[in-house]
C-alpha cells in the first residue's frame, strides 16, 4: 500500500527538468524575494513576473495553465492579509459595521491587499513549478550545495521519506476504527460528541507514540551503519554551460523587472 498523494514530481523530458537543481532552487528563491520586494501597485512588474511564470510553464512542457490550477489551493492563506484593507490610512472607499464595530476600507489598504495577493499568487506558482520539475532528493542535494544548514536539509529529507509511512499509518488507524464502528440494526451508530472526540484523541496519541518508537528504531538503524552525528552525500550534479546561461538569463530578467517596478 503506497500513498503517493504528496509526490508532486511530474516526469517529462524538458529543458527545465534537465536544468541543474541548484539553478532551479536558486532562481525560485530569487524570484520569490523579488516579488516580495516589488512596491505596491507595480503593475508592469507584476505582469512581467507573471509572464516569467507562464514562460517557465511552457518550457517545462507541463502546459501553460499547469501552475495556475494548482495555485488556487494556496489562495485562502493570502486572506490572512485581509486586515491591511482597514489598517492602512488613506481615502475611505467603503464603511460597514460588523459585530458593532466600524470598519473602513481605504484606497491604500485595497492597493496593498491586491498587491500582496498577486505577490503570493506568483510566488506560490513558482514554488509549485519547482517541485513539479525537480525530483525531491535532487532538491535536497541542491539545498545542501547552496549551503543550507545540514540540520535543516536532514529534517526535510526525513520528513519527505516518512510522510508516506505516516500517512499509511494514519489510514491504517482510521480503517481499524471504521471496521469496528458498527451499529445495532435500526439504531444509530457511534456515541456522543465527547466520546468521539476521545476516540480521535486516542488515535492522535497512538500516531505520536508509534512515530516516537519508529524514530528510535530508525536512529538505531543509522547507528548500525556508522552514523555519528553527520550526514554525508555524494555529489551527483555538474553545472554545465547551459545551466550558467539559464541562471544568468533568469537573474537578468528579474533585475529588469525590479527596475521597471521602481520607475
Amino acid at each position, binding site marked *: 500500500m*503506497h500513498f*503517493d498523494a504528496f509526490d508532486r514530481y511530474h516526469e517529462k523530458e524538458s529543458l527545465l527538468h534537465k536544468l541543474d537543481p541548484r539553478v532551479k532552487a536558486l532562481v525560485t528563491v530569487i524570484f520569490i524575494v523579488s516579488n516580495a520586494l516589488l512596491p505596491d501597485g507595480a503593475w508592469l512588474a507584476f505582469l512581467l513576473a507573471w509572464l516569467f511564470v507562464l514562460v517557465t510553464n511552457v518550457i517545462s512542457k507541463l502546459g501553460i495553465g499547469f501552475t495556475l490550477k494548482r495555485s488556487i489551493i494556496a489562495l485562502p492563506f493570502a486572506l490572512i492579509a485581509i486586515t491591511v484593507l482597514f489598517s492602512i490610512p488613506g481615502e475611505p472607499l467603503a464603511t460597514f459595521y460588523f459585530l458593532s464595530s466600524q470598519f473602513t476600507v481605504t484606497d491604500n489598504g485595497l492597493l496593498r491587499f491586491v498587491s500582496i495577493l498577486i505577490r503570493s499568487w506568483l510566488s506560490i506558482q513558482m514554488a509549485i513549478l519547482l517541485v513539479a520539475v525537480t525530483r*525531491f*532528493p535532487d532538491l*535536497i542535494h541542491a539545498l545542501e550545495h547552496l549551503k543550507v544548514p545540514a540540520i535543516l536539509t536532514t529534517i526535510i*529529507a*526525513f520528513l*519527505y*521519506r*516518512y510522510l*508516506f*509511512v505516516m500517512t499509511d499509518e494514519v489510514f491504517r488507524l482510521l480503517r481499524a476504527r471504521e471496521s469496528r464502528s458498527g451499529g445495532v440494526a435500526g439504531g444509530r451508530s457511534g456515541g456522543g460528541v465527547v466520546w468521539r472526540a476521545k476516540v480521535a484523541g486516542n488515535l492522535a496519541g497512538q500516531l505520536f507514540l508509534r512515530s516516537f518508537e*519508529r524514530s528510535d*528504531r*530508525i536512529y*538505531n*538503524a*543509522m*547507528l*548500525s*551503519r*556508522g*552514523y*555519528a552525528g553527520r550526514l*554525508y*552525500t*555524494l555529489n551527483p550534479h555538474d553545472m554545465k554551460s547551459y545551466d550558467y546561461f539559464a541562471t544568468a538569463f533568469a537573474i537578468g530578467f528579474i533585475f529588469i523587472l525590479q527596475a521597471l517596478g521602481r520607475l
Partner: protein
Amino acid sequence: MPITHIQKPVIQPETDCDVLSVSDLHFSYPDGHVALQGVSLKLCRGDKVALVGPNGAGKSTLMLHLNGILHGKGEIEVAGKKLTKDNLPTIRAMVGLVFQNPDDQLFSPTVFEDVAFGPLHMGLPEDEVRARVDVALEAVRMTSYKERLSHHLSVGEKKRIAIATVLSMNPSLLVLDEPSAGLDPRARRTLINLLRELPITMLVSTHDMALVNELFLRTIVMDEGRIVADGLTQDILADEAFLNRHGLEKP
C-alpha cells in the same frame, strides 16, 4: 570509472571460530525488565545460524548488543576485537544488522543513497563507495533499482535493499531480524535463495521454522533470556516435546 580494491567477502575453508564470541551477557531494560541472563555463544566463519524462540525471549535484545547499540554486562568480541566504546565504528562496519521493518532501515530518499550510507560514513572515497553500492545491489539482484525512491517499493523489494544497505559495508557477520516476516511466498522464496547464496557468516532470528529447516545447519534456541539449546538443526527439530516446551512448532 576505476574500480578500487573491492573486497568480495570470501569463505575461508578452515573454521576460524572467532567471527563472533559472546560470553556471559546480562542485560536489563531501564524499566527493570530482565532481557538477557547469561548468554554465551560463538560463531565460526561461514556459519549460517538460526536464532529461534518465542516473542520476548531476548532475540532482538541480543542482536542489538552485537554492534553495541545496547550495552549489557558481559563480553562481546567480533573477529577477535573486543567491543568497546573506542572501536564502535569498526565493529559497526563489521556487523551488518538488518532490522525487521525495512521502513526503519531505509531512511534515505533514494535506494542509492541508502546503500551508500554505510560506506560513506566509513569515510571511503567516492569511487569506492559507488563500486560498493554496485556490488551490493548486484548481490541482491536489485541493480536496476538504484535511482528508485524507497517508499515506492514493495515489502519484498525493500527487504532486499535493506540487506544491500549492510552488504555495502563488507561486514564479516550479517545479523538479520525476522527477514521472512510479512513476505508473500514468492518474495520469501527469493529471499531464501538470496540468503543461501550469500557467502557470509550470518545469524538469523526467525519464527519461520520451515526456513530454519531449509537453510540452517545450526540452530540456537532462546527462551526467557537464556540459550536453552545450541546444536544441529535436525536434532533440535526432531525433539517435539522440547520445541513445545519453548513455544515452538515442528515445521
